[in-house]
């Protein structure tokens, strides 16, 4: 689980380099001004690349915070979450 979260933190840090790692787990689209629609697409594309997954448009619409994305990834990889 820690590895999954750490990889996700790295993905966020790549797209939002202005964030310090401790800040990342609490960010959401509403709390981060630079998380606009373009950054959101870049972030999800990066996560698809990093985790070798494909995120459907329906799912993508709900992935608007670090916590929600982490939960989503845990559901896709239950063995990592154990």
């Amino acid at each position, binding site marked *: 689980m820690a590895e999954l979260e750490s990889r996700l933190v790295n993905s966020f840090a790549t797209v939002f380099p202005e964030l310090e790692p401790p800040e990342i787990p609490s960010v959401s689209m509403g709390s981060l001004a630079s998380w606009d629609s373009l950054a959101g*697409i870049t972030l999800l*594309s*990066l996560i698809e*690349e990093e985790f070798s997954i*494909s995120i459907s*448009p329906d799912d*993508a619409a709900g992935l608007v915070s670090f916590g929600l994305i982490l939960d989503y990834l845990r559901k896709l990889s239950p063995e990592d979450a154990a």
Partner: protein
Amino acid sequence: MTMKLAEALKVIQSVPAHAPPLQVALLCGFTPLHLETFLRAHLCKLFPGRSPNVQTGLYGDLIGNVQRVAGVSAAAVVIEWPDLDPRLGLRRLGGWEPSQLQDILGEVNRSCDLLQSGMAAVARNTPLVVCFPTLPLVPVSFSPLARASEFTLELRSRVASLSAALSHLPGIRIVDPQRLDALSESRRLDVNSDLSSGFPYTLSHASALAEVLAGLVLNPQPKKGLITDLDDTVWRGILGEVGVQGISWDLDNHSQIHALYQQLLHSLAASGTLIAVASKNERSLVEEAFAARDPILRETDVFPFEVHWGAKSESVTRILGAWNISADDVVCVDDSPMDLAEIKAAHPGAECVLFPSENPQAAYELLERLRDWFGKDKISQEDGLRAASLRANAELLHGIKQVSPSAVGDFLRQIDGKLTLSSQKQPLDSRSLELVNKTNQFNLNGRRFQEAEWQNWLNAPDAVFLAVSYRDKYGPLGKIAVIAGDLLHGNGVNSDSSGKRRLRIRTWVMSCRAFSRLIEYECIRWLFDKLDVEELEFDFLPTPRNTPMQNFLQQVRNAPAEPHCHLSRAQFLQSCPASSHVVEESPNG
């Protein structure tokens, strides 16, 4: 291996904040999204020290984006099928009925005409890299997918015609689909992404395409010379062991890859690449092999031959001296890893590559790499003269060494040197820009220019441009020098406090093939006489390799070369030798 998105973002973030910008336009009809990111990242890698800024246009308006582009150093135009007719995309529903196919072809024709005129207009001032559709056609035709329909063939034919027509225009570089195929093998169309964001590419395809586009924006200068071994390289077999009749380059002896290598070298020589031989062999045997076996690589393609039993690195040193170029500009090909290592240790800048004589597949891939290293936009008149003029130069220098320094002028007058000067600024002369961008030794400051930057500067009314061609009894050298600067008037615009009419020389280069002929003095003499200036100011900067320029400035000024140094007419007249050449101005101005 294509660049990943995470890597691309990190590359972009690593650019220093105050690096000078490099403005490049990415013109497409889809959402540029990750293609923009990858293009920027690849440009960052190719232009270290610059901060690439990729400008994009409006969604769905490729033709308008092309027409509006301005203020950039280069532009990449990426055309996909929906740009030619929106019915060929996934985001518009105009119908795929058989009855509409003819109308689609008509619309594609119209779009191609508009794109052709738009791109031709832009390319006059801005270098354009153009990529034609890379994505599969949507299933618009009624034929099964494996069968090419009349409709799809006509469609592709129209695009191929546009591509061929544009390729003739200076300033336009077309992406070769074969190169893109080699880099982008996997699925290219991302339906999800196209439908949700208007970006139609998979990440891997976007990365590969961006790499190709950035490479063409950079338009790297080709390597200048290739130094090759002979045994198990140019031919199969060790000449000293198997004899002249034992070496081979043919299908029967399973040595066809050596024939292909020779064929490539012969082609490179004909395209202006310098070819030399560095071989540990008996000189007489090599001469006999070239005379008796009639290889595809002609003896006249090669200058010089370094054939002896001494160290290869010493051969390379002498070859570089004969060519008057640096190791950075050459590729050494040899089948011996040890010899390559020895060359590399002495000449770290040289590309040293193994000829894999036992592996035809790897050897073929080497041929592709060589073509890439030495590839050029077009073959100039100078390319055809280069090897011959180097031979003639060796003869000339030998002649100069035979006479006393005070008699050099007399000697030069005997060789019937003739300079032809052209100050015509339009249209863009790619040979002049090539000289500016690849000359290292007689170079005022090492400054390089992008095409658009060069053209924009020369378009200024006070910009002065001079291109110099040369020939003598040993043959023509072609265009060998370029001077460009700004006239500074005593009053009015560009005035200075001295009140003198001056020329500030910002760029001055001369090919090393033209050294030892006092051509540099003739150039200065012409500038003083024809431009009626009282003083020259040189934007001189020392570089690791421009010692010949430093020496000349020291000699003509009788003072060390330094940034913004000056030369007055009186100073010049004191130091210049008598004219040794006939000087004529080009009829074209």
